């Protein structure tokens, strides 16, 4: 088998490399979420873009939605298909010893990692007032299905965080600080594992 030095690989939410994937009124950047890319590249991460589940399911002109609206058998089956499409690449990274992390999109009903948007009574005519949803500390539907697919393949959990773009009011400086702290803590944990090969 070809030998290669372990790499640092960041799985990134689709829209962090392509803001055209965002729901209408959700694109905070023209093209790429540049602070995320800059921070990851400066720290030597290889970027692996994940597919966007909402774009291919509900389209580019989809309505805003919350977790409960996407929590359906058909959408979960769609997410599993996407997970099966990208999982072989992720499995390859993990099996050859690369360090893999995941940067999702906090507040997203699909790609949220630490937080998702929730409102159990959303539905029907889309005339809800702005901010009429809650932020809940849980994964979005797509991240749940992606992690389940990786687990089915016997792969370890991938350390993950989210860029807080979909939390209602976007605080770029705060999001950047969060990301840097996550990467610092991950680097410290990886360093400790390297010093102690018996550590999990």
């Amino acid at each position, binding site marked *: 088998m070809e030998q290669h030095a372990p790499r640092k690989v960041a799985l990134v939410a689709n829209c962090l490399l392509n803001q055209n994937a965002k729901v209408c009124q959700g694109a905070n950047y023209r093209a790429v979420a540049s602070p995320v890319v800059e921070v990851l590249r400066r720290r030597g991460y290889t970027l692996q873009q994940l597919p966007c589940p909402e*774009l291919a399911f509900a389209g580019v002109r989809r309505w805003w939605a919350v977790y409960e609206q996407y929590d359906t058998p058909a959408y979960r089956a769609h997410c599993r298909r996407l997970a099966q499409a990208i999982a072989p690449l992720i499995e390859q990274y993990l099996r050859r010893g690369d360090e893999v992390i995941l940067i999702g999109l906090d507040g997203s009903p699909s790609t949220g990692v630490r937080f998702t948007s929730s409102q159990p009574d959303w539905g029907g005519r889309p005339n809800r007032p*702005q901010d009429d949803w809650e932020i809940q500390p849980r994964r979005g539907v797509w991240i749940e299905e992606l992690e389940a697919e990786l687990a089915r393949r016997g792969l370890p959990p991938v350390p993950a965080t989210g860029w807080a773009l979909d939390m209602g009011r976007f605080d770029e400086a705060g999001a950047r600080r969060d990301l840097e702290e996550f990467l610092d803590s991950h680097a410290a944990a990886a360093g400790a594992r390297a010093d102690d090969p018996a550590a999990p």
Partner: protein
Amino acid sequence: MNADVRGWRMALVPDALINPLPAARAALPDVLAVLEAGGYGVLQLPPPGGHGLLLAVIADQVAEYAHHGYAVAAVGVRGQPGDGLHWRGLAPLLRHRGIELPPRHVVRPGADVAAEGARLAAFLAGYDLPPEEQRRWRGRTQEDR
């Protein structure tokens, strides 16, 4: 929510241009930076190999964009099989979805790096949908903004 500032343009880009190997980096322009400066989002293509299901997933996304007023181009790299664009697999998938194949530009490693970057930037700047299509889908053309 803030005003939506999406650029309405994107490019299919091989993994080898997004994550060039250290040995290849000096011979290539920073393609991600050129795309970003040009207002192009990225649709990342996988490294060489099969990836049939992933290509189908990417083709679904390209079709959705192309049917709704977004401009999709492709930026390959010389020296990779099929310029890294998986064209043999991707082209039939796009045709099957009723999509014209995106215009292609190929980056040449080892050429004058600054000139290659400028050549890519000029290709990106010169491509978009016709103004009437832009107005139909986007309300205003890029030039109006």
